[in-house]
């Protein structure tokens, strides 16, 4: 009998073009390469300089999301791009895709959206695949049992030209989440708790596999939220073994296999889950029954705590560098050690990003805000992850619920998660955000971010102060 293997090891082994040697890393084949406007221009320049073609345009898909405006369309139905640098960058993307034969979901077209929303939505993301993109949140696609990770622009050029990457084999970490979730506690709270436990660098060198009955009971969109933030714990990739929930989600999507191909694909995917007895290099365990809604208080996603807890005190930390880091974070956030965050006024609430902008996120948010109003002190933005999500939400009337509550309903894109497109905080402002990063200035220079779930975001928008969403759910 062969040695029991983890999900990661099976996907890794299936994609080895040339094994690792003492002198060279493994050469890994890439099944799907997703491309966006910000991290690709310099890679296409490399191809042009060397007279190279894109090896497999048919395994490449491009979209526009990072620097695109989310402001309303004009009378002609066009989303106007007023920033000349963003406009030039989008033109470069169009030219690169046209010149190299890569399909592009252009700004405002029906399939455009955040790269990590559209891959799964189109059925491009499938179990057992290797998927890369010049974006660290590529880990999202691991929710399908794919090995998916972010790469730099040099590596984007490698994949464009050769469909391969040079990779050293990472270690594996099992993240077991057992037990049932309480009402008002979501996938976002699970991942914020995981990162608070392992720390912002705890997953460095590892691929995570999330397992346990709490994970099994989550929808695909919840699993994507969790895998999305693997990188916030330092892990390039996070994976969930595919199951019937996965297959139901993929079935019937535009790029999903059909007919006999589908049956063959599913039979193969059923072989992917980690074998009984397979060893991980490290393991962490969480009991989801102990979890409450989570919120971050500091300037990295590892600085998170249960929403009702007190902000930690740097003086209680033994390690000098950690003490210094927390001290700096609290100064930036203008928070006091020991203070409660519940009741703290905020200026902006952002519901969106590749972490929490899918239809189930918007449904949850809409259900909670229905019949309520956004506090007069708060600007609330709801930014769907894709044009498809936007259309679906509008078909269900969710946009009317958000607008009636006083929230802004916008076009699809990364928006205030990365604040490249004009959607940003002003210096000193506080935001509760459903996105993935609370780094200094991430949502606008001088802006201060509390990361939380869509439910916490809505409850906070309604009260105008940080609010435990369990007060508002039935």
């Amino acid at each position, binding site marked *: 009998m062969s040695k029991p293997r983890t999900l990661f090891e099976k996907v890794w082994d299936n994609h080895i*073009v040339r094994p690792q040697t003492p002198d060279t890393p493994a050469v890994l084949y890439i099944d799907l390469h997703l491309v966006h406007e910000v991290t690709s221009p310099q890679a296409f320049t490399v191809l042009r300089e060397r007279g190279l073609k894109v090896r497999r345009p048919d395994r490449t898909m491009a979209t526009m999301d990072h620097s695109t405006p989310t402001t309303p369309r004009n009378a002609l139905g066009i989303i106007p791009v007023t920033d000349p640098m963003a406009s030039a960058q989008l033109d470069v993307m169009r030219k690169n895709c046209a010149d190299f034969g890569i399909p592009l979901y252009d700004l405002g077209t029906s399939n455009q959206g955040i790269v990590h929303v559209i891959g799964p939505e189109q059925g491009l993301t499938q179990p057992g695949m290797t998927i890369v993109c010049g974006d660290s949140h590529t880990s999202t696609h691991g929710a399908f049992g794919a090995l998916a990770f972010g790469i730099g622009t040099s590596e984007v050029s490698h994949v464009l030209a050769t469909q391969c990457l040079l990779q050293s084999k990472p270690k594996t970490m099992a993240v077991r989440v057992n037990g049932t979730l309480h009402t008002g506690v979501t996938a976002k709270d699970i991942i914020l708790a995981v990162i608070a436990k392992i720390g*912002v660098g705890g997953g460095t060198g590892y691929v995570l596999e999330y397992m346990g009955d709490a994970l099994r009971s989550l929808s695909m969109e919840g699993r994507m939220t969790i895998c999305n933030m693997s990188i916030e714990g330092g892990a390039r990739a996070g994976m969930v073994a595919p199951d019937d929930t996965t297959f139901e989600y993929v079935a019937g999507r535009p790029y999903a296999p059909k007919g006999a191909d589908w049956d063959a694909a599913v039979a193969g995917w059923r072989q992917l889950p980690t074998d009984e007895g397979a060893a991980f290099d490290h393991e962490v365990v969480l009991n989801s029954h102990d979890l409450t809604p989570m919120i971050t208080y500091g300037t990295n996603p590892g600085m998170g705590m249960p929403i009702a807890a007190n902000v930690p005190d740097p003086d209680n930390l033994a390690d000098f560098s950690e003490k210094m880091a927390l001290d700096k974070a609290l100064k930036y956030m203008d928070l006091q050690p020991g203070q409660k965050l519940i009741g703290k006024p905020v200026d902006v609430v952002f519901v969106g990003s590749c972490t929490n902008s899918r239809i189930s996120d918007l449904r949850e948010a809409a259900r909670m805000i229905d019949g309520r109003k956004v506090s007069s002190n708060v600007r609330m933005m709801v930014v769907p992850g894709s044009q498809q999500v936007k259309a679906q939400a509008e078909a269900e009337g969710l946009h009317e619920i958000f607008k009636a509550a006083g929230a802004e309903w916008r076009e699809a894109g990364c928006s205030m998660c990365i604040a490249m497109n004009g959607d940003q905080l002003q210096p000193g402002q506080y935001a509760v955000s459903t996105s993935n990063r609370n780094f200094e200035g991430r949502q606008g220079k001088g802006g201060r971010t509390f990361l939380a779930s869509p439910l916490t975001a809505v409850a906070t928008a309604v009260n105008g102060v940080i609010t435990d969403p369990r007060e508002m759910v039935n």
Partner: protein
Amino acid sequence: MEPIGKFSGSMVALPNNDIDTDQIIPARYLKVTDKNGLGQACFSDWRYNEDGSPKPDFPLNQPEYKNAQVLIGGHNFGCGSSREHAPWALMGAGFKAVISTYFADIFKGNSLKNGLLPVIVDEQTHQQLISLAQEDPTAQVTVDLESQQVILPDGRTVTFPIDSFSRYCLLNGVDQLGFLLGLDSDVQQYENTNVGRVATTA
């Protein structure tokens, strides 16, 4: 790429833990379509006031650290996004190496592909280098890739790890894309036996 062997330079310390790529180069500078000019924006939010004037207390703005070529960063340097603009910006700002106890995976990979050396040292050496850089801005360290050693001003040598392939490429100025392109027949063979799942252009 220019081969990298051995170089000596003075140091500047930013000992904060978990320095993320949004600090190294904020996202608003990512609308460029080339690699140039990012050095000016390196650590922009820590380095400049609202009106664009330099903050005098930020080490990179202090005249004695102006020519530093080695950055001593805190633990987990380069966490966050995959933007290769981070090593481009650091190199644009004159750095040839960053020394820390450990680096975020994507940042480390990106740096190695651009000739910015991510040098991993033990915690004690790390502390010593931070103190040295803060006390004596003229203190020089030597980084020798061939022997994988950092030579401290007191002559002590510390070995650092680096994967043998990256080391080979950097020492010989070999670019990794060239290596991959040379494997075309292996890739072809893989493709012949593994049918693709998606066809985006179909």
